[in-house]
Structures are given as C-alpha cells and as structure tokens.
C-alpha cells in the first residue's frame, strides 16, 4: 500500500502499479481510504454542518475502514488476492495525531487492521507537495485545509501548516512501521520502475496469477 501527504505522487504511482499488475493478469483488488458508501452520508453531514471534532472525525473514518476491512480486505486476502490500498491506517495516525488525538488511543482503535506486506511512503518536500495541490485545486475544503484547528484564517496557510504537521508524523513512523521511503521528486517513470522492482523482490507474484497456473496443474 502507499502513504504520503497530498501531492506526494502516491496515487499516480499506485495507479501505475495497478495497471502493471492488471495487464499481467494478476488477481488483485484496489481500495481507497474513505470510499465506503456506508458512512458516506454521515461524513458528508458532519463535514457540511461542521459537527466533527477530532475524535468523531477519527471514529467515522475508522468505522468506514472497518467496513472495508471486514467486507473486502480480509475476505480477499484470505481468498488469495493481492490488495492495493491508496492510503491505509497510517493516514489516520498521521492526520489525527496532527489534530491532537492521542497516539495510544489511535493505535488501539486500528488494532484490527492487518499489517501490510509493503508500505511505500512517498516523501516530497512540503513546498513541492503543497504547490502541486494548490495549482490543480484552487478551493480547499474546510477539514481538508485543517480549518477546524484554527491554525490560520487563510485556508492556504492553514493547509500548509496542517500538511507540515502530517509530514512530521509520517516521518516519525518510518522506522517503527517499516516504511519503504520513495523520493516523490523523482520522475514518474523512474519511481515506478523502482516500485515494480521492489514488489517483485518482496512478493511472490506467481501466487496471484492462479488462472494459467491452475489450468496447467490440471
């Protein structure tokens, strides 16, 4: 799975990895952070009316993740699928600690999540990442910009401070959570080459290409 702040290039890289595996015919499932229809209405309501506190913001995302975990990720892992995740529990650890949630409480909250085989951490300097986001998406949303924390009255400045805090949290997890650090400033194709190489050495991909293998075995 991939992690990194907004604008670090992680989604592009994971998309390319997914295309590579799809074209190769591997059995895989792709999942995104915050994608379950189950809690979408609550998250939307909470965001629109600005009802969310750091704690309920965190809990709603955990509920959403639990739904994906129990209904997709775990059953698919058990049935021999390769699961690609665009953001995982480390997103919650970095973002919610930046919102002053307790790290101990958060680590307990997500204890039910399976530990990933590989965690790619796309690291880009704050300025590079923020500029990528700001040039493509002029209007920042309230929670996305971290406006709920009163960091600054200016959304762009608030976003910058918030992303800086998140970046610091990610950096702290590198060693303890075995992140594979990727330099987000390298050219896209070069990064993708590294990523594919790393996946090949770490994971026996033949396990996920069962169709041909199974026929041959019969």
């Amino acid at each position, binding site marked *: 799975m991939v992690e990194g702040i907004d604008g670090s290039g992680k989604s592009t890289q994971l998309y390319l990895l997914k295309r590579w595996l799809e074209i190769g015919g591997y059995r895989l499932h792709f999942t995104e952070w915050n994608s379950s229809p*189950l*809690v979408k*209405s*609550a998250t939307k*309501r*909470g965001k629109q009316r600005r*009802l*969310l*506190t*750091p*704690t*309920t913001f965190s*809990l*709603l995302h*955990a*509920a959403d993740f*639990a*739904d994906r*975990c*129990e*209904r997709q990720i775990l059953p698919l892992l058990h049935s021999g699928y390769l699961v690609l995740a665009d953001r995982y529990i480390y997103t919650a650890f970095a973002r919610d600690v930046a*919102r*002053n*949630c*307790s790290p*101990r*409480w958060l680590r*307990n*909250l997500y*204890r*039910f999540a399976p530990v990933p085989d590989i965690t790619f951490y796309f690291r880009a300097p704050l300025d590079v990442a923020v500029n990528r986001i700001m040039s493509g998406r002029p209007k920042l949303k309230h929670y996305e910009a971290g406006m709920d924390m009163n960091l600054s009255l200016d959304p762009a400045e608030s976003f910058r401070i918030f992303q800086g805090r998140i970046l610091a949290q990610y950096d702290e997890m590198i060693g303890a959570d075995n992140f594979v650090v990727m330099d987000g400033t390298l050219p896209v194709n070069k990064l993708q080459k590294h990523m594919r190489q790393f996946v090949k050495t770490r994971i026996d991909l033949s396990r996920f290409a069962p169709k041909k293998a199974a026929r041959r075995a019969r």
Partner: protein
Amino acid sequence: MSPRSKGKNGRGKSDISSTGTASRNYGLPLPGINEEELGGSLIVIEGMDGSGRSTQIALLTEWLESEGFAVETMGLRRSGLVAKDIDALLAENTITKMTLTLMYATDFYDQLEHRIIPALRSDFVVLADRYFYTLIARAAARGIERDYLHGLYEMALRPDLTFWLNVRPEAAFEREFRKSHTISYWESGRDLSLSDDLFQSFIMYQAKIKKEFETLSERNGFLAMDGEASVAAVNTELRKRIAAHLGIQRTHYRPSAALASLWR
C-alpha cells in the same frame, strides 16, 4: 485532572460517589476539553430493555426539575451525527460487528462532546439512559476483545453514579412482550445465531450480556438495584442515592398527573 469535589459549583459530594478517583476520564482526556471547566453531575442508568430505565428517567427528571436542577438526558443512538445512519444499518442487517461497534462509538462521543460536556459546563445534571457500558457488553458478547473496547472508551467521562437495574431476562422478556408484542432482533441477539427460538435466543443473549455487566460492575462500582421491584420502590431508592450525592435534603416526591400512570 480536577478532583470531583472541586466542581465549579463547589457542591459537596458525599462519599457515596461510585468512583473515588480523582480524574473524570478513564485514562485519557478528550482533545480540546478542559475537565476543570466541568461542573454538574453525570448519572447513568443501565439495564436491559424491559428493566424500567426510561420510566425511572422520566420520573427522576421531573423530581430533579421540581428541586430546581436543570436536567439533560442522553441515550444510545441519539446523536445528531450518526443516529439515523445506525438505524439504517441495523435495518439493513448486513453490517459487520467491528463497523457497528465503531458507529456506536461515534454516536457516543458525538453526544459526549456536543451534549454532555456543554451541559456539565452549565452545571446540569445529566441523566444517561444507558452509557458506553452497554456498548462494551454488546460488543464483547460478539467476540470483540475487551481490552480493545476499554481502550476505545478511554476518553469517556467517568459517571458520578451508575445504577444498574438488574432484572431476570425472563421477566424483561415478559415486560417487553407485553409492551410491544414483539422482541427486537438485536435485543435478542439474533445475529449471534444462538437459537432459532426467539425466547431462547433472548434469554441466552441476555445471560451473556449480564455476565459482561458483572465484570463491568466490579471494575466500575455500579450500584445494583432490583429492577423487578415496583416502580415506586426503585424510584425511592434511586432518589435516596441521588439526593445524598447532590445534597438534596428533602426526598419526598409524588409524580405529577402527567406521570402518574408510571407510578405503580
């Protein structure tokens, strides 16, 4: 971490308090909340459906208001944020246990932060029609680790008093059935496939819940009450304990005409 006795209003707290510890939380403070600003009292009534909780809360509210106390209530699935979503999930019946546990936790913390804490800041008496203890008991009965659950609710406020209306599942079943002519799918633990027979399933499930409550009671010092005694008898006992806690001298109370039908 303010000791209870230093509540904003300086009201004397008797030693009947079930907690006896200094902190108002279970290990972690809520982000952004200064516990020293909190006055008032948090009083919890626990007990299964059919144990008479809501009747007692209606009576206690009237009594406290007649004594000049401002009262706020809370209960499960009453948050502005996710109550409707939980209703929909329960109706759909495809929800998995961890997701449901976390949706209930969201509902609980939303009420804690948007209802209980503002009320305590304004020196209200908060009467909770169930608290997170029920949520722990239900989730533990479904196989979620108890450590995990206690960690989840580590930032909850510790109640000043917790009453546990204890009834035999058989008696609760009868009361509920008489009231609504049916037993709820979830309250009888049908999702656990304990028995095809509704009555059996209810009894077995409530026995599991009760076991969890016994452990919780030891850990948190619940005041167990006989929920099968008459409404008036239970109410008198509750008022006695609460009066001692709040420093109310006179405990005489007769329900108004509006609530008289509850008094039996």
